[in-house]
């Protein structure tokens, strides 16, 4: 499915501020697997997600998706297969556009955007039905600008937008970090449901240890740009919060 082979990313190479954000990382994600990635700030988690999404390019190594090399493709080309939810709920949606406009763009992910009016009655109804599954009452706010919704509502809609087309990989970059505890739990539950219903290959980055233990089928820890721990579902189920927190006691 998704195969990362010896990938390396160094920022500011050759300068005094040189940082090896990701160093010789090899990682294989099985189809329909849900992997959780933890690590201290600066350990390379978000950079790894950016390298997979194509927001930045690898210096060395290869990224293969369905046995096709994608590491040189720009983010907008990879978006056909790879969807990403950002930590900041404001980044995943366009604030000045209506909820419906945002969903129209999501429904055309990876397809050309022609000069035609595509929002017929059937499309509006399909979006309304899809949003109703969130149970947040947002199906009546289709004509409202996205910027008028709360962070939690926007993040939930962003998650739903990722599955408006068939994607293979879902990257979740601390999707609940900027939300209040109730919204955070709600968003994580929605993500979990979307991942299992759509059989997505998911990679979740989080600083929340209870989230890391509750969700996913595999747990990975990164440190200084490398993968230092990798637990499968069975080993992960035996971990407790105290033990995972102790991984960070190296200062």
């Amino acid at each position, binding site marked *: 499915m998704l195969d990362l082979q010896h990938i390396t990313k160094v920022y500011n190479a050759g300068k005094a501020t040189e940082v090896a954000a990701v160093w010789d990382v090899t990682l294989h994600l099985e189809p329909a697997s849900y992997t959780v990635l933890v690590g201290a700030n600066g350990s390379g988690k978000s950079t790894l997600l950016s390298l997979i999404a194509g927001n930045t390019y690898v210096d060395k190594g290869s990224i293969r998706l369905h046995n096709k090399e994608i590491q040189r493709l720009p*983010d907008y080309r990879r*978006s*056909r297969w790879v969807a990403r939810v950002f930590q900041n709920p404001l980044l995943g949606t366009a604030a000045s556009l209506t909820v419906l406009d945002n969903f129209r*763009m999501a429904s*055309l*992910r990876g397809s050309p*955007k022609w*000069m035609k009016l595509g929002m017929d009655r059937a499309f509006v109804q399909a979006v309304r039905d899809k949003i109703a599954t969130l149970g947040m009452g947002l199906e009546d706010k289709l004509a409202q600008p996205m910027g008028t919704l709360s962070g939690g509502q926007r993040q939930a809609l962003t998650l739903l937008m990722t599955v408006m087309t068939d994607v293979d990989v879902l990257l979740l970059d601390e999707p609940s970090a900027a939300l209040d505890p109730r919204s955070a739990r709600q968003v994580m539950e929605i993500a979990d449901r979307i991942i299992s219903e759509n059989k997505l290959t998911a990679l979740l980055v989080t600083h929340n240890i209870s989230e890391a233990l509750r969700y996913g089928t595999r747990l990975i820890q990164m440190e200084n740009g490398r993968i230092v721990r990798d637990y499968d579902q069975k080993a992960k189920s035996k971990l407790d919060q105290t033990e995972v927190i102790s991984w960070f006691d190296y200062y």
Partner: protein
Amino acid sequence: MDFYLAAIIQAMCFGPLVIGLFLSMKIFNIPDITTDGSYTLGAVIMAVGLSNGYPVMVTFFLAMAGGALAGSCTALIHTRLRIHALLAGILMMTALYSVNLVLLGRSNVPLLGYVDLFKTFSVFAGADYNTLAILLIILMVLLATMSYLLRSDFGIAMRATGDSELMIRAQGVNTSRMKGYGLAIANALVAASGALMAQFQGFADINMGIGIVISGLGAVIIGDTVINFLKISAVSIMLICVLFGVIVFQLILATALGVGVDANLLKLTTSLLVLFIVALPRVGSALQLSKRS
């Protein structure tokens, strides 16, 4: 000709320009200074075409194509060479000065006596009202086309590019290309304004574009203030507000001249007026804040 009627006709000539500026500055969030050069380019191509006997409509579309090319060049400099949009626009505007001078051959070309757009089509017997009617038709066609474009899938992608580049790239849109299309359309409209103005005033001048971006900006800000005040989210109504803005702006300038402001101080008056419009909401909120405290 009635002084205020002339001001309204002039404002209508600026109609495509303010729609273009609304596209670049408000939709794409790009401060596009190419406007000063592409406005003159439109006038220059129109003047060269008419004085060489080219058909009016062909020349008009050539002027728009020239503007589109200028806008594309600015977008290429900005997106491919990663140069700030403001600097890219200034570079293009500076380069266009020489291009315009070479095309025009001299600093000023009179167009009186040539059959222009306003003489080709006859709606009313009176020349002024005929000009007004033709401009009205042009603006209505422009309004319909632009509101369709901005509501289409392509237009939504354009609007999203200016709003959240990260979001729309995640939906598979090449934002560099989208900015290219956007600046090309914006500058084609600006050039159309230049071409209309050259025909209305009866000459093309190499310096006619200086400071035009400020006049356009003032109109866009007036329109934007109305949009925000009325909480308008429909694209077609937004475009109408911007066109309303340009008429109000030109009428205020005409009133200033009417009450005796020296014509030599027109650019200073324009700048002060734009400054006043920009500062007004900030002064208003500062006053509200001090009232509350």
